[in-house]
């Protein structure tokens, strides 16, 4: 064998070895990805973890971290998902990947309703010069954060930054307009017991509140007129005031409940009918 042939043999051996190791890692990745695509998330995570364990050169580290995170997210394991997205972000090679992963973390925080965290992360993205061309996407997720925080007015504001005619701008505006004013319900009940309940459509409760307040108010005033001052004060304090205060709390509770119902109807629409990207 000539010297050239010897080198050629060594080269082939080396190349064969590399291609062999790449092949089995690739096959393992395909297997894990197939399980992921079939929504068999538990097994997909196992196989991605196996890939990471044997992938000593970390070729698949970032992509597998991200897919593990997605699998955890789809399985409802949000904390684990954030942990793996964070690892994926650390191992990311370019700024587009980093941005995409940061948005994924925001989306999980939206789902977890950890609004503070989501807004803080989005604020960091807005301040970062690298993503100045992605303002619309950042605003989009700000809007979703406010939707999940039940702040439809702020959500409207965020979506309108993208476009005043955006489907979500219109939906959030409509939802916000449909909502009852909790403050108005309370003030109405302060002026006339039961009025706040009437405002929210709870007529029987409104009448009951009005009746109780009138009854104990009458007994209290009557006792005071008859100069049974202590009697009057005690009835006013412990009975009339108790029902008056209950009436205020009731008015507030009904307004909050109605608003929750309106929010849920909108969320239900978003879940089943909205075609765009959701958290």
């Amino acid at each position, binding site marked *: *064998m000539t010297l050239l*042939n010897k080198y*050629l*043999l060594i080269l*082939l*051996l080396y190349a*064969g070895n590399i291609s*062999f190791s790449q*092949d*089995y890692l690739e*096959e*393992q990745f395909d*297997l894990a990805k197939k399980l992921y695509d079939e929504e068999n998330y538990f097994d997909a*995570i*196992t196989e991605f*973890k*196996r*890939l990471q*364990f*044997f992938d000593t050169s970390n070729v698949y580290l970032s992509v597998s971290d991200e897919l593990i995170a997605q699998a955890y997210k789809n399985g409802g394991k949000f904390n684990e998902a954030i942990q793996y997205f964070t690892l994926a972000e650390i191992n990311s090679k370019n700024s587009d990947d980093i941005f995409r992963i940061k948005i994924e973390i925001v989306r999980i925080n939206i789902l977890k309703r950890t609004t503070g965290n989501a807004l803080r992360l989005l604020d960091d993205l807005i301040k970062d010069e690298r993503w100045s061309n992605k303002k619309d996407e950042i605003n989009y997720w700000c809007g979703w954060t406010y939707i999940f925080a039940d702040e439809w007015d702020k959500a409207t504001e965020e979506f309108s930054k993208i476009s005043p005619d955006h489907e979500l701008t219109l939906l959030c505006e409509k939802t916000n307009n449909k909502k009852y004013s909790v403050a108005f319900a309370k003030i109405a009940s302060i002026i006339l017991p039961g009025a706040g309940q009437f405002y929210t459509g709870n007529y029987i409760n409104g009448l009951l509140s009005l009746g109780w307040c009138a009854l104990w108010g009458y*007994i209290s005033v009557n006792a005071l007129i*008859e100069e*049974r001052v*202590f*009697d009057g004060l*005690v*009835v006013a304090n*412990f009975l009339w005031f108790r029902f008056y205060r209950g009436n205020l709390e009731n008015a507030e509770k009904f307004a909050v409940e109605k608003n929750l119902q309106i929010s849920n109807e909108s969320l239900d629409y978003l879940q089943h009918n909205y075609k765009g990207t959701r958290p």
Partner: protein
Amino acid sequence: MKIIFLFILFSFTIKPQTSNLLHTPANTRKFADHLFSGKDYLRSVFEYGKLPEYEKNDTIEFKIPLAYQLMGKYDLALEKFLSVNKESVYYDQSVKEYYKTLLQAGRYNELQSKLANNDVKDFQRLLYLSYLFTSNELPAEQNFLEAFPLSGKESLLSFFSEKKNPPYKSSLLSGLFSAIIPGSGKIYLGEIGDGITAFIATSLFAFLSYDNFRANHDFRGWLFSGLGFFFYTGNIYGSVAAAQIYNAKVDYEYKEKLNEYLQNKNYFVPGNDFVK
């Protein structure tokens, strides 16, 4: 050239076998060990379960029930600890872990009946610890403390004393106090605000009833009497219920503290190197 040709041919023939390379028994075992040390116990158990019999060893046979125990799947852990081979180097340790699991699973009576006549120190400790959870008669204080190392004696003495004389409140006394002076039963339980409120509410309704009867408002007099009586009886019932809730809280907090302490001390069972 022949050699080169043969090599290329060989490398082509080897390719179809690559898909299973990471799933060979040896690699599966390595991966399972990695998952176990990463505290992903459920996946590690599945991986160990895939291993053929010839690849399994004493360590794996011991790690499987241990993983179940660490996941809180006590019934499976007990079953698997029992199946550890007597020839295994981990057999003694698995027996200890078996009894520790019985304690963790809250199967105290079973543990007590199985270890009643066992004089080995490690088992005696688990037996004595089980008495801290049950209403069965406690062992003598000196015997109890002797079984444990010096570092744990002080805390265990405190748990022992609390078990022996729990700081319960009598529901009978609480109800009786409230029957004599409304609200006093609640004050006896430490709920001073509730006690004062109950006293004021009952007294006021009694006064309002008296005042209305005096002013010849019979209907209002009866109305306030009824409300006063409702508050009075409600307060007695509330005081009895509050005493029971208080005692349940004492029990709950005692068990929480004890469980936390024992978990930190690994139930006074020697730890395993591969669980860290």
